[in-house]
């Protein structure tokens, strides 16, 4: 825990005023002014002591959310405990401490501020700070600063507590135009139907012996009554349409030269956003979605449909490190054999060879036709500086 005092403008003004009152008291010989001077000086003393004692009794813990999304508020909570037996704490400002000159979480997120008006002695309160993620990726927080200038606002004092902790910021999800998804949803030999496989659906599939792990609710009581062993009902597995989103990052930015590298990097970010938007829209429409990232050493994610699976894909997109060495895009036989719709997202020109013939290919240059966003709004999503400017 590091402690420090902050001498800001009100402190200097107050000190100047106190000196003026002292001079007026000495020159005028007015005892009331002497008393006022005494009160002002003691206020300075009380301010320094009280804020220091108040902060020394605090302990802070950060409660991060599982993830944030670029452009959406991310609520970070701080659990603050006042260990003091007698002294309450007032007017505490809790924020992430950023060392000057260091590039860390500030590159990906704009800092929030949690305000705690009061903590009683021996109490624990939770305060909320709203952060605004500006870029996807891993956000590593390090130090938490708790600051107060109570009781008089003259002298600020802060403590900095080291609490290393990280979270993921997912890429932004843009509303995809409906016809785009309609076009890429496979409509031929795959679709919403019941397969002849047991699963977690609603329709009846058959009867079998009860096995450890089966729910008691699935016991077929009538059949069980006729036999000596417990039987349970087996349901069919639903088989919704499937979609594999392929993100083609096989071409490294440096290959185009330094000048074009930045543009290429922006396009790749847009491609990631487009992929995330397709995944989100497909998931919302009831499709099973999978993801393959071409050009990077990442394992493909098979198509599934659940909340956790969706987050898994988003996390995979968030964790993509564009500085990694790129590999040539290889067509996987297993993926080729899948009875599944395929949407390939390219940052630049479309390379039709990376997927099978019936795949849909999208590029970032078409992006404003695919999502409900203008080009300017899209630019703010991939450039934190532009985003900050737009926010201000």
């Amino acid at each position, binding site marked *: 825990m590091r402690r420090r005092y902050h001498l800001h403008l009100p402190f200097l003004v107050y000190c100047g005023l106190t000196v003026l009152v002292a001079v007026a008291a*000495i020159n005028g010989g*007015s005892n009331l002014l002497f*008393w006022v001077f005494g009160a002002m000086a003691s206020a300075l003393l009380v301010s320094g002591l009280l804020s220091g004692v108040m902060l020394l009794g605090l302990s802070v813990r950060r409660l991060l959310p599982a993830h944030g999304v670029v452009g959406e508020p991310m609520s970070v909570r701080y659990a603050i405990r006042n260990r003091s037996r007698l002294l309450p704490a*007032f007017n505490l400002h809790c924020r992430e401490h950023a060392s000057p000159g260091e590039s860390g979480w500030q590159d990906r997120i704009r800092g929030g*501020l949690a305000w705690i*008006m009061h903590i009683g002695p021996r109490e624990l309160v939770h305060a909320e700070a709203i952060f605004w993620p500006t870029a996807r990726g891993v956000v590593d927080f390090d130090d938490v600063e708790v600051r107060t200038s109570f009781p008089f606002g003259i002298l600020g004092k802060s403590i900095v507590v080291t609490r290393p902790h990280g979270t993921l910021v997912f890429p932004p999800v843009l509303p995809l135009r409906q016809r785009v998804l309609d076009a890429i949803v496979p409509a031929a030999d795959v679709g919403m139907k019941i397969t002849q496989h047991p699963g977690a659906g609603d329709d009846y599939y058959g009867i079998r012996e009860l096995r450890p792990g089966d729910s008691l609710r699935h016991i077929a009581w009538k059949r069980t009554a006729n036999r000596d062993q417990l039987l349970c009902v087996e349901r069919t597995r639903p088989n919704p349409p499937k979609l594999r989103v392929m993100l083609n990052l096989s071409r490294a930015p440096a290959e185009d030269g330094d000048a074009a590298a930045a543009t290429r990097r922006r396009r790749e970010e847009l491609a990631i956003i487009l992929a995330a938007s397709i995944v989100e829209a497909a998931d919302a429409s009831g499709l099973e979605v999978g993801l393959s990232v071409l050009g990077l050493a990442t394992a493909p994610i098979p198509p599934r449909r659940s909340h956790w699976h969706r987050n898994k894909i988003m996390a995979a997109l968030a964790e993509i490190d564009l500085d990694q060495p790129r590999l040539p895009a290889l067509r996987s036989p297993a993926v080729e054999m899948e009875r599944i719709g395929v949407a390939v997202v390219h940052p630049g020109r479309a390379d039709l060879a990376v997927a099978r013939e019936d795949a849909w290919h999208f590029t970032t240059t078409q992006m404003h036709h695919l999502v409900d966003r203008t080009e300017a*709004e899209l630019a703010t999503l991939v450039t934190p500086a532009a985003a900050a400017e737009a926010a201000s």
Partner: protein
Amino acid sequence: MKLLRSFPVMAFALVLLSIAGFSAAQRSVEMFLVAGTLAAVSWYVTEGPRGRTLPRWASTMLVLLVTAAGVADFAVHPRDIPGVLGRFSLALTVVKLFDRRTARDHAHLMGLSLLLMLVGCMSSYDLLFGVFVAAYSLLGLYVLLLFQLFAAHERVTERRRRRLPAVAGTRRPPQLAPTIGRHVGLHFRGLAFVIAVVGLVSSTLLFVIFPRSLGRDLGRGARGGVTAAGFADRIDLDVGTRITDSRRVAFEMIVGDGWRGGPLYLRGAVLDDYRDGRWRATVTPAEPLGTDGRSIRWLARGILDPPETVRIELRFRTPTSTLFSPYVPVGVFTSQPRSFRFDPARQTLATDRDDPPVWTYAVIAQPEPPAPLVTALSGGRRRPARPFHTFDRPDEAARVVELAETLLTEVGHPRPVGQPPSPEWGMRAAEIFAAYLQTGGFTYTLDVSGVVRTAQDPVTEFLFNSRRGHCEYFASAHALLCRAVGVDARVVTGYIVPDATPGASSLVLESAAHAWVEVPIDDVRVATFDPTPPDALDSAEDPTGGLTARLTFLVQRLEGVWMNRVVQFDERSQTQLLERLTAGSATRMKTGVEAARRWMAQVNRAFYFGPAGYIWLGLVGLAGLIAVIALVRAIRRYRALRRTLGLRTIEPGEPGRLRQLGFYHDLLVALRRGGCTKPPWQPPLAFIGTLAAGHPETAEAARAAVELYYRGRYAGRGLTRAEVAEGRRLVAAVERGLRSGS
């Protein structure tokens, strides 16, 4: 939230209080009525059902107007800087009250209210204003604390609003609700109370110990405005001040039985030289006298207990170098030998310059002295017929002469032509002038700060224009009217006791300080004339009877305490307080040592220890001290162990385990001293893992100690004696390792 919602009301009350306080300081009911009414209207306008505020441009225009008015006010009253500043602040406050009420505006209003009270402090010593200052301090503290919360809430809300991205369709965060614990109001008021007490104690301490002599050599030009009533051996009418009635007790007086009743004038200084609005005493050689502390020292040779004298004993609260006495003193008595100087021309007494001032003395006086007695006192010298100075400007002198002669002519007592006025004629003229000043439409007031100063002499200003003033103005005007017609009058300053009772003791306050006039009866004697309206003279005795009188007396006592303890607290008061404290603590220490010695002697006698008993007692005392220290250390270690091991309750078998696991606490202390503090949230072994990166060898020993700790803490069995010893050995190894940096 209830706390935050109460802030605007409290802040408004604070501003209203400062307006009332400043009006009280200025003693202006009109100011309070106007400003207070406008402030009340502002509350209805801004916080009422409509909730309207002045637009910015309108408030800016009004502020400019107020500033212009302030400049004009300063041009009219260039010497009344506090008054000008206060009126300007008051007008600005009223304008700001109609303005918007953001946190910044509230801060402005609070700053202005503080300025009003500071200006009030510079211009008033009244008890009423003191009450306002006390109330303002308490309320101001509460409002200031509340303001911190209010402003922070507003700032954080605004910051959260501003951080919202401007992109359409962005999900908005929820509204900010203050994070508060339980009993916030109780805690807030409790903390405010504690701060108030600490602030009061520390500010009082600073007030008491702040050296008052620092400003002695600084310019006194800025001083003035307000002075407290009290005796002065000179008069300066050219400084327009307001005199605050001082309820400080000057001295206690016992008048002997020889007193026939009536007002008692105790003469301090006789001022006979008037120039430029100032009265001074002409320097004349004074004769040195000495008292032996046993008998009365008669002031002239040949005087030995003259008839019809009165003995007056005075006990001063602060020592004095001027010896006050009725006209005419004939003898002095002090309990200790002292050296005096007696001015035979004026019959005044003062201590010798090299001698310390006196606290108590008795003076023998003869109120109606025969001429030979006064001649003896004056050493046989008659009053010289000398020219006396009146006014520098001839036109002013002519106006006063014209007035004096008009007054005399009106009552049929014209000035004799071609011959000097006789003493009898002079006495009659002095009577006429005194009657004119008492009944001629002049107003007695202690506040002459409002009188506009011009190039005129202050006495002519008083006589012909303002017609307002206190006893010094009345006495000066009377003396100068007498001088205008050739009567050698002089001003005397001292104390007046309007109704001194023979044989009774009475307290004389500083506010009984007075100025009057002496006019010659013959070549050696003088008669006393008091031109001040009699209604203005206060009684120095305790009021008796009736609830009103008792309440008045109570308020006067309060005022006395206020003046004594606060307003007139000076370097001398500091010295007295220090002496009292020093004497008190020395006495207490001496008493304590004596009591301890007696107790030891009793114990020694009771156990028949003999001469070596004191050594035994000393050893027992030392052992007791060591036992207490050991007990304190044991309790502290017990508490630290409980804290470290996270044991809130101790089971019957736990104290033994606490002792066993003490090595783990020692390990953490050693690591902390070595700069490796274990975070409370980190498990011990995980912490040792992080330690291994910087101190691999030390981490090995620490890991073994922690594993031993785990065994003792969580394995459900205690540690053996050997294991505990091993734990201590490991801690010692960790300490060695940290010292060597491995």
